[in-house]
């Protein structure tokens, strides 16, 4: 999956798409906070959001996220394994003096946390349309100017990706691929980022013009469709929270039991 498919809304009619946006935000927050508690909760959220992404989007999307993230995750895993091993030197070594079992374990957890965070955020953005987000934010009485800034950002992500790819195509033609890797990287960043910023600024000006002509932002803005909180939304959230609390309690209880046994 190309990087430009991340966090882009996928139009479908699933339970997760119909869910109230506020409840989804709550679920995202709980999940992101809880993955720092213990490994059991981390594994639970990983399984949960794997399930949600498969049912809310597709199995192929889930697999392609993992596939495209893999090189990035491997690098993070290797770097973290080394740094944690250097940090905790009084542990058992796998490869002396670079890697300890504990360092590898901690690096694994870091990578899992990162993966879960990506899955959680991806779940939110692929199942929440900018329109649903707009109506929710207006419902909680956020000023229209702020709501517009948030929703337009999501609306224009695909357009900006397209523009970047157009600039990239043009610059690629100017012999950049004949340079050494580092020089190429430097020139690519410079020759793509600079025009991209200029083009984004131009576009921002044109969008602001279009907004002004449409009477936005407006204190009189009408909410067009608001997906209210349904009983099923509440039940599923309570169910997830209960599992997380149970796992936290179970972990606490087993830890204490181990202390008592010792």
């Amino acid at each position, binding site marked *: 999956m190309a990087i430009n498919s991340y966090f882009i809304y996928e139009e479908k009619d699933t339970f997760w798409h119909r869910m109230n946006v506020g409840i989804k935000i709550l679920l995202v927050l709980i999940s992101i906070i809880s993955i720092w508690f213990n490994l059991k909760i981390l594994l639970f959220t990983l399984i949960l959001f794997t399930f949600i992404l498969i049912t809310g989007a597709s199995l192929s999307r889930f697999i392609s996220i993992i596939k495209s993230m893999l090189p990035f995750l491997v690098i993070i895993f290797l770097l973290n394994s080394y740094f944690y091993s250097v940090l905790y030197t009084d542990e058992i070594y796998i490869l002396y003096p670079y890697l300890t079992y504990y360092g590898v374990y901690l690096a694994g957890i870091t990578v899992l946390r990162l993966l879960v965070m990506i899955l959680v955020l991806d779940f939110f953005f692929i199942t929440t349309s900018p329109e649903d987000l707009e109506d929710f934010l207006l419902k909680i009485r956020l000023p229209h100017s702020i709501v517009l800034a948030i929703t337009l950002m999501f609306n224009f992500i695909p357009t900006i990706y397209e523009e970047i790819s157009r600039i990239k195509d043009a610059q690629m033609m100017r012999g950049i691929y004949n340079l050494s890797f580092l020089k190429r990287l430097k020139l690519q960043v410079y020759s793509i980022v600079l025009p991209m910023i200029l083009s984004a600024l131009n576009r921002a000006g044109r969008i602001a013009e*279009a907004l*002004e002509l449409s009477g936005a932002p407006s204190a009189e803005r009408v909410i067009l469709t608001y997906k209210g909180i349904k009983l099923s939304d509440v039940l599923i959230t309570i169910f997830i929270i209960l599992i997380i609390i149970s796992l936290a309690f179970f972990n606490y209880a087993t830890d204490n039991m181990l202390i008592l046994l010792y």
Partner: protein
Amino acid sequence: MDDGIELKDIEFKYRGKGTYALRKINLSISAKSFYLLIGPSGCGKSTLLRVINGLIPNYYHGNFSGKIYLFGKDITGFSVRERTREGISTVLQFPEDQVLARKVWRNVAFGPANFGLAREEIIRRAKWALKQVDMIQYWDHDIMKLSSGQKQKIILASALAMKPKLLLLDEPTSQMDPVSAENFAFLLKEINESLGVTILLVEHRFDEFYKIAHQVILMNNGNIVKIDSPLRIFYTDLPRKLGVGEPKIFSLIKVLKKDRVFKSFEELEKKILLELQDIESLPKKNLANMRDVNKRKNPVLSLRGIRYKYKGNKDYTLKDINLDFYEGEFVAIVGKNGSGKTTLAKIAAGIIKPKSGVVSFKGKPLINSKKLFGRRIIYCPQNPELMLFNQTVYDEIAFGLKNLGFSRDIVHKKVNKIMRFFGLSNLKDSYPLSLSGGEKLRVAIASLLVLEPDIMILDEPTRGLDWSIKLDLVRYLREYLKTSGSSIVLISHDVELLVEVDLDRVVLIDDGKIIMDSHKEQIFTQPNIKSYGIKPPVISTLLQKMDLENIVGLNEFASLFGGKKAWQ
């Protein structure tokens, strides 16, 4: 007729600019009329629209003076919002910039929802507006998945949902294929006639609009040069001299040297036909004697059995494409929006890999295509001026050569040569982004052509440009071909431009398949050409009645009358 909008002594200078963008403009536009506003790029057309819709002086600041009346009411001090409430709506050039919500109906409802109307009223208006533009069937669609023409129709519906009395449009058809632009023109006519909405339209495409407009306003250097009926204004040489071009039919009558103004377009067309009948020895082009475009050997670039499907799409964008490009050729690829032209160009250039099939460069399969970029194959994307980022025109053009490792002397020689060729020598030290639209485009294309590729593919480089800039560009390209031996592939919608270029052949694509690969005369005179999103050239449409349909370009037509290229 009553005054719809009246401008009195309008002057405006943008903050930080030395010269006035508008100078003492006095203009009165009758209610329920259709005005076409024309003039060269940068003459103040868009600025004039901004003055009317209130973006000037509320959004764009500077020195403003003068008075504006809308249906007799002084609206000079009104904000943009107040003017919208009074009945002024605007459609801008790029539909993508006005997509403020992804769903079609939400986008149409976006404006009314900002004015505190009841939800039911907003929905009612959105439905009504979508019906007016015949897009109600797309109510719940994702607007980004529609074609440019459809998107602009949705933007028009969004403007109509505000129930305007005055509709301002700033080059709304610049991103459309010819048939979509023609449909859009009919739609505007309908809106003007049946809803009584006053229309002020800025356009570069005249062939679609000259019959619809009641009056034409010609601007230059911030002044209104002339206001008259289309028949009168285009009969003068003024638009052409200012580089904005003119509808082809007027160029035709000028070739025939008829020096009187006609009362109607019908009379004008009739007169042309009568004149032609008097000329007995008009040679008919014999297509049978033309060189067969496909019987050549050793292509530079060859595509065999190419199929391509975008991720998430059900259908293939390209379906079994077989196509060759030869040395020294100037080829055009035409087809409607979404027919697969850009995908084909990217595959030919090696930017994307086909799902099946082989692309070969000089007989060898294109495997590591990236190494060929800049040396052998160049793809120039839409809006190439987006890639400009260097401090001077010289550095911009030299950028690619330096990357390819040429010595300083060679870089200097090559850059100077191409700058002379593209008429950029006097702009050598200028900042590329401060140049005019046409100059920026020339810098961008020169910075690619300086690499002397074997084949260059240009993806709609002339979108939304003045006629003279477009002609200049193709003239430069043609001249370049003569001296370089490279091949150029030009993707374009602009049939009226293509028929004036000395093309070796034209490839017509539709629905991911090659429909025809032949001479432009054969392609553009196909009876069903409109079904492929291509509008037949004005000249051939007219000459069909004379059994001279194989003459498609005015240049060629003019040559029958002593070789005077009146269109230039």
